[in-house]
């Protein structure tokens, strides 16, 4: 069951998102954070939220934002899809060739202007999800099951004129 994050935890979450990714604290001001077993969830504030948590058995609330790992927090791809557009730090932009490798969970060997650790990976302005940057190599952290539909069927444009088929 989920419980509300304490004030201290909330400050830590906001500080992490702000320090690691440059997401302004005010962007997170209208949200509540909830704690599951290993996951921090983000949900918009609502006057009804307290009542719902008191009266109902809630399985999940909003979007999973962070997972607690032994070495600290790891941002989720869903959380970065949700907030990543506001990020200004540790954001990596891929080119076409790198996109294909990233979506296949392959390694991308390049020096990016980012610190080691978890990064936000973008392509053509859209947030793809979470990556791990080791200083000269980038590895996808997007869960394999989320990428499976893309792997199973190549991204053929649906428009037959565009695809030439």
């Amino acid at each position, binding site marked *: 069951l989920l419980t509300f994050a304490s004030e201290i935890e909330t400050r830590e979450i906001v500080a992490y998102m702000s320090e690691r990714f440059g997401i302004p604290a005010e962007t997170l001001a209208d949200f509540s954070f909830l704690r599951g077993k290993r996951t921090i969830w983000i949900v*918009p504030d609502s006057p009804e939220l307290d009542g719902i948590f008191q009266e109902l058995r809630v399985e999940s609330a909003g979007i999973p934002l962070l997972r607690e790992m032994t070495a600290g927090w790891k941002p989720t791809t869903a959380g970065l899809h949700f907030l990543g557009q506001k990020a200004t730090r540790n954001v990596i932009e891929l080119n076409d060739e790198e996109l294909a490798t990233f979506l296949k969970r392959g390694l991308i060997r390049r020096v990016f202007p980012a610190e080691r650790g978890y990064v936000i990976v973008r392509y053509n302005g859209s947030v793809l999800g979470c990556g791990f940057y080791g200083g000269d190599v980038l590895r996808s952290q997007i869960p394999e099951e989320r990428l499976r539909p893309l792997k199973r069927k190549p991204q053929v444009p649906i428009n037959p004129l565009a695809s030439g088929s």
Partner: protein
Amino acid sequence: VNHQRPRGFERYREIIPDYEDFLEALRQPPAVFIRANTLKIDVESFPPFMRERGYDVEPVRGLKEAFCLKGKGNPGATLEYFLGYYHIQGLTSMLPARILNPQPDETILDLCAAPGGKATHLAQRMRNRGLVVANDNQGSRVNILRSHIDRLGASSLIVCRYNGQDFPRRVLFHRALLDPPCSAEGTYRLGPRPFLRIGLTAMERLNKLQRALLHRALDVLKPEGTLVYSTCTYAPEENEAVVSDALMQGRAELLPISIPFPHAPGLNSWAGERFHPELIKAARFYPHHVNSWGFFIAHLRKRN
């Protein structure tokens, strides 16, 4: 309730207008509709965004977030789908959220929410302001619901897993959506379904469950709260009979449905059973009128 054993669509010959056209429409492959996810992109930017990427999209008159996707391919296997810019949804399945018309800062219940197309649509229409409690008791379908929440960024969804008919009465909602399990006859165009062999026991079980779900949904509405009851079946036993039960008991009144898509009124009677006269305010959608799957919608307001 009509206890006649259903045998295909023939039993609907008298109630479906232009029945031969209806049969002809069933033979045609359904159009693919997608819903622009306005939590990620505004409706005006969506068509050029998609066209730039090689997709042929056509707006749908009457529902600004709906688009028809032309051409071949798997719309669930594209980068744009993965990124949550759109959701694949039958056109008629987009109507319940529009008719319920949830407002920002309200609290909404979707009692049988998985796999989540309608629940995420509600959150989208509310711009993630307020809360949508998305309830469903089927584990594997709840996982699909969660994946759609993550992909679409529907952060205002709260997921619960109660049996719908046992949903706690302790929280009251401004509005509710009830799209209960049904025989799904309306989705025939997606490929023949086992409903054509549905037996009397299954039909009775569905009807009983649908009634119990509707009563519980009314229980947890605030006074004057509104509710949309929808199914993707033509069976009056699962549509008018269920809603009529609540109306006859004085628990709700029916509201008119104003929507710019052709539809037929709800039935007043079926197989000797008379329904509440207000049922003509309900809407029946047929594939030869709207190029999607068959649907039934009733819009109710709870009586104090």
